[in-house]
Structures are given as structure tokens and as C-alpha cells.
């Protein structure tokens, strides 16, 4: 019985370690750097619930934009339903710079597993008032629905937007 209790205690401790969320400061540290590039291995080694910490950072208006933007980008590494919903809301309701990054994170994280979901959001954003959001959406649509991309090119009034979308 004594040994059983010890084993249970150890298992409880290990289980606790496995599900522990990383400290916000740990996540923030991986978002720093002037010439930042996402380090997938580093983020994925932070443990469970990293996505929740990233969402909190991304939605915190008191945090400087570059950290919020990078948190969005890092969320593409955690393509859960919670992440998907958050990124869709971000793309739909945020200011243009945040909206574009929310969409791009959804595209990067979900294109392989849920292409229809990405396409649905992209189609909405083809009508966005910000040109860069339209370009980003159009580039995604190009690989998902060639006919829809062609119709976008015909409808888009800015020639430079059409040109950028085709890059």
C-alpha cells in the first residue's frame, strides 16, 4: 500500500508537470528580437496551454504591437479549435494590421487541415477596406480556389493590389 501511494504521488506530480502552462514571461521572451523569426521548436517545447498564454498576449491592448503580432503568428503552431475561433474573430473585428496577421496565422495553421475554413475567412476579407488585408486574402484564395481568385482580380480596382496579389 505504501508503495502504491508513492507511485500515485509521483504520477500526480508528473501529470501536473506535463499540463502546466508556461509562465507568461517565458513566452514573452521567445517573442523578443529586432529581426524576429518564429522558432517552432522553442514554442512547442513550452508545454501545454501555451496557446492560452499566446491568446492572452495577443488580445492585451496594453502590450506593444510587435509582441501581440508575434503572439498571433506563434498561434499558428497550435491549431486547436480555440485558436481557430480566436484568429477568426481577430481577423474579422480588429484594426487592419492585427486583422491581417490574424488571418495569416489562421492560414499558416489551418490550410492543410481545414482549407475550407481558411477559404471562408479569406473570401470575407477579399472585401476588406485595407489593401494589404485584401492582398493577403487573395494570395490564400489563389491556392485554394483559382476561379475565385480570377474573379477577385477582375473586381479589384487598384492595379497595384492586383499585381501584389499575384506575387
Amino acid at each position: 500500500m505504501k508503495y502504491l501511494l508513492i507511485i500515485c504521488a509521483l504520477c500526480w506530480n508528473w501529470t501536473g508537470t506535463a499540463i502546466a502552462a508556461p509562465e507568461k514571461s517565458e513566452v514573452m521572451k521567445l517573442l523578443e528580437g529586432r529581426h524576429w523569426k518564429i522558432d517552432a521548436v522553442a514554442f512547442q517545447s513550452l508545454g501545454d496551454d501555451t496557446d492560452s498564454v499566446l491568446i492572452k498576449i495577443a488580445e492585451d491592448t496594453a502590450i506593444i504591437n510587435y509582441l501581440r503580432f508575434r503572439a498571433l503568428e506563434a498561434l499558428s503552431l497550435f491549431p486547436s479549435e480555440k485558436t481557430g475561433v480566436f484568429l477568426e474573430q481577430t481577423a474579422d473585428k480588429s484594426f487592419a494590421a492585427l486583422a491581417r496577421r490574424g488571418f495569416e496565422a489562421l492560414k499558416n495553421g489551418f490550410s492543410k487541415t481545414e482549407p475550407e475554413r481558411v477559404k471562408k475567412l479569406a473570401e470575407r476579407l477579399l472585401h476588406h477596406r485595407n489593401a494589404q488585408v485584401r492582398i493577403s486574402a487573395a494570395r490564400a484564395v489563389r491556392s485554394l480556389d483559382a476561379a475565385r481568385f480570377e474573379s477577385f482580380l477582375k473586381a479589384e480596382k487598384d492595379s497595384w493590389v492586383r499585381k501584389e496579389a499575384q506575387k
Partner: protein
Amino acid sequence: MKIKLNFCRTAFILQTVTLLLAGGCSKKESTSSSSSSTSSLTSGSLPVTEITQSIEGGYYTGSFAVPSDGVSFILSVFKDNNGSTAFYSLSDPDGTDILSSSSTPTLSRTASGSLGAYGYANVLVPQSQSFSAKAGTWTFKAYSNDRVKLALRSGTTPTSTTIVVQPYITGTTWAAGDLNAALSVMSSIYSANGITLSINSTITISDSQYAAVSGTFTDTTTSALVSQGVTDAVNLFFIEGYTGSWSNVLGNAAGIPGSMGLANAWNGVLISLTVHAYGTTLDAQLLGETAAHEMGHQLGLFHTTESGGTVFDIISDTAECPKSLDNDNNSQIQMSAEECEGYGAENVMFWTAWSSSSRSAGKKQETLSSYQQKVLKYSPIAK
């Protein structure tokens, strides 16, 4: 002894393979023909000369003279189709090839002109305290290219130094006046390090296609934007934001160094405004530090310490922050400014800014070492 830029090794190998292939092709087609380049002087205060090249042994070769009062030069090689280009060698008047790995000192695997780059590469002398623009005849061998140009500064040894800066702003979220506080921070940083910045009035570029651009200088839109830069200043393009995979970068220079004295796609730096804001309120201190940092790259300064704590710059008096100082309780080695306090985190050219909490507590990156200052004071674009 500092370790050279290891992060470039993979790129170096790839570039070398490409360039050797290109060199091989040149050998096959070369006979005794000479290139069609002609010498000419371009406009602007910095004299720029195109060097006549001839083809010898498969390499494009040329030479130039540095006068007895030569201060510095930047030797640039161009490939119009944005293909790979580089120098094979650059020998000083004593016959020392400063791009050879067996030379001491050497810029081998450090200068873009040695590593190779797409469309444009260069060699700056001096890029550290170990080099000087020795008087006499310098000779080079280059791989296939369209032209080689020399920007040469001569005159008295620099004591007081002025660098002209030309800011630009794109997009509609912010106006020229919104940059004033950041430009003031940048000016103060350089002034505290013995360099006067003469900052021209900010030019607004209203064409909406330039609001957000790629950080790749060979991109057609980025190239069209940066090519608008003037030839007698360091051009700072404050863009509303980056596009694509560059979206979350604070800023980037066209090279280490970038081009000087010539209007082209590598004649400036990009700095994103959106990422430096809380909502739409710009963080002037951070933006000014980023501008100072990117300008340092454009003029030839490397990061004093790279993120992993194993790669350092080529300047001997800058503090290094080795990975042994990483004190996180995780397996990731990434040297934060906080971990490197007293080990270079205060330097303008440290790889990352202080964290938000440290910045709020007043931490700044405003120092340059004596030898870093020397590189800037001797810069061809400085006066």
C-alpha cells in the same frame, strides 16, 4: 578572438556552390575579352567611380588607387538580374587578400562581398579596427557581374563627424510629425557617441503601394521604394508595416553595410511603424533605438552578440554575452537583454531590445564602443 558570423555559414556554402558554378561558366566562355565597363563619376558629394574590369582566368578583375589621404571606401558589385554575385578576392597594396580565410585580419565569411548576395554585394574598408584604407593600388577578382563601383572617401582623418540622414514615411496612419520624437532619440544616441546627425525634413511618400512592403530588397516594390533614396545621406524608410513573412520584424537594413552614395535598391533601411506602437501610439524611445540600430547595420556594424550567445561581431572592444549567462529554467538558449546586462545589452547593436518591463523601468540601448564609433566616423558616407 571573436568568432565570425557562424549563422552565415550555411548561406555561405550555398552561395559558394552557386558562385563556383557561375565562375565555372565564366571560365568556359572567357577568353581574352574585356568587359565593357567605363570609368565615370556620379553625382553626389561622395565620389563614386565605375571600375573597368577585364576577364582573366574566369574572374572579372580590376584595380583602383587609394590616395595617401584615403579615409575609407566601399567596393560594390552588381548583378542586374538579382543573381548571386560576390568578390573572389580583394588585395590591399601589400598584396594581402582581405577576403581570404588565411589572411589576418580577414573579412572572409563576414563581408557580403565575400559571402555572396543576390543582386548586390560589397566590401567596406574599414569595417573594424583591424582594417584601413591603405594608400596604393588595390586589386580585386569578382565572379560574374554587371559592374563594380567604388565609393571612396578621402581627406583629413575624421575627428568630428556628421552623417546626413534622410527620413521618409509611408502609409496614412502616421504623419511626418509623428516621427519627430523618435528621430530626436536617434540623434541623441549618435550625439552621445561622438557623431552628429544632420536630419533632413521627412519626405512623405503617399503612393499607397508603399504603405507596407517586403523586407526583401530585391522585391520589385521594395526596390522601387528604396531606389528613391538620395545619394548623399543614409535613407531611413519608416514604412507603415512589412508584408508576408517580414510582418513582425521591427526593421532591417539593406546590408551590413548597405549601399552608400548610389541610388539603388540597397541604399536605405526599412523600419516598421505599426510594430512600434501601442494601438496607434508610437513608442518613440524604442522606435528611435531601432532606427539607430538599423542605421548602424547600414553603415557596417553587426550585432554585438547574436541570440544564441555563440556568435559575436568582429569588433574587439564590444562586450560579449556568452550563452553561459542564459539563466532560464528551460532548454532554450536565447540571450535576453536582461541576462546580458553589463555584457553588451546596453549597446545599440545588441541583437534584441530590452523587454517591455525593462523599458518601462527606464532601460535603454544607447551606447557604441570606441571601435564601433570609429567605423561610423570613417564611413564613406560620413563627413
